[in-house]
């Protein structure tokens, strides 16, 4: 690869990353191309060189952020052999809650993703793929827990995964509005699955000590 090609690739990636940040900060309707160029440290003409229209840039930025959202939300959940299924499940739920800082910003972006997919039917397969990935992530962890004898054999992994995802969205968005604490949301989700998975009354502490303790 020549130096010029490397720079070009870097430019495109930087523009997309800057666009994602701007969407999270300003909302998709308010984003300005000039601002994205400034954030990315490139000229507006380079933005136009890579992306024909504002819409093309925003669509691609959102696709890119779906991937990012998937990567951020789906791990690292901790090694099941080291932590066991119960602790790992709590860590996975934590990935889905709007803790202040990084995850909060991701959450705001995530709400923009919902909106974009609602407004643009052609984006729905991308959104549905993300949900399928997230669903499988939880369902697989529950099946692993059953196989390891840590969750009851009769637990319905798909129903539990559905419930966790829906509650994480419903409680997460309310926590984002400051209606309840993230730790409360965490406990509520835990309560809603603990009977079926035979979990202890309190979820174990977060794996990441930077996160506030419940």
């Amino acid at each position, binding site marked *: 690869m020549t130096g010029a090609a490397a720079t070009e690739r870097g430019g495109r990636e930087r523009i997309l990353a800057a666009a994602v940040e701007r969407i999270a900060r300003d909302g998709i309707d308010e984003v300005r191309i000039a601002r994205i160029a400034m954030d990315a440290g490139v000229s507006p003409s380079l933005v136009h060189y890579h992306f024909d229209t504002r819409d093309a840039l925003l669509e691609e930025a959102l696709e890119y952020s779906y991937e990012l959202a998937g990567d951020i939300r789906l791990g690292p959940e901790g090694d099941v052999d080291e932590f066991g299924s119960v602790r790992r499940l709590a860590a996975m739920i934590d990935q889905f809650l709007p803790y202040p800082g990084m995850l909060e910003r991701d959450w705001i972006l995530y*709400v923009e993703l919902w909106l974009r997919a*609602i407004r643009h039917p052609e984006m729905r397969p991308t959104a549905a793929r993300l949900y399928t990935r997230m669903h499988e992530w939880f369902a697989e962890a529950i099946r692993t827990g059953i196989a390891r004898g840590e969750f009851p054999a009769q637990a319905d992994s798909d129903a539990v995964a*559905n*419930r966790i995802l*829906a509650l994480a969205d419903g*409680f997460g*968005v309310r926590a*984002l509005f400051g209606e309840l604490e993230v730790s409360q949301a965490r406990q509520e989700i835990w309560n809603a699955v603990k009977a079926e998975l035979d979990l202890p009354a309190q979820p174990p502490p977060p794996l990441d000590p930077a996160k506030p303790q419940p």
Partner: protein
Amino acid sequence: MSPRPRLDHVRRPELLTAAAAVIRQRGLENARVVDVADEAGTSAPSVLHYFASKAELLKEALTSAEERFYEELEIELAGMEGPRERMLKIVQYGAGEGDYDAVLWMELWARALRDPELAATRAELDGRWRRSIADVVRYGQERGEFGPADPDEFAVLLASLLDGLAVQIALRDMEVTPDRVRELAVKLAERELGCELVEGTRC
């Protein structure tokens, strides 16, 4: 001098309904005053006679669509005798039935993240949704049909579940259908309320 726009029979409520329909079809970002006028069978100047700006019109349209949803729900609930029947109606409404879909709700919630005025409206409407649920729980407990769950805690739990599932229905996640939502929500409610909700079964 341009003629004063002729004001026909179309009034604010009709315009709000038309604006909601346009937002549903075109999305908030692409909704134009002329679309709302076409939908309502009137002219753009007539629309702007009632609303100072497009922003005001769209904001009010989002709010009034939600309000109508709650009004309809409250009327339906009041017409039902049994608490279990009422709880099933709540679940049915939350699963996307009734004259409503998640599009307007999501536009409102997403915009409320950045607009303090809409954030207050959103909080008020969400409070109303949760009160409707909590009232049914209290009603069922008074009549000895529901177990001793905390009505307000249950309300936020069920509302969160239904909202989260509504997102998945709206994104056309094939695994999550309105039937599946009902099943998941009924199961959660039955467990929390210690009572079977589905017709023909006992408490």
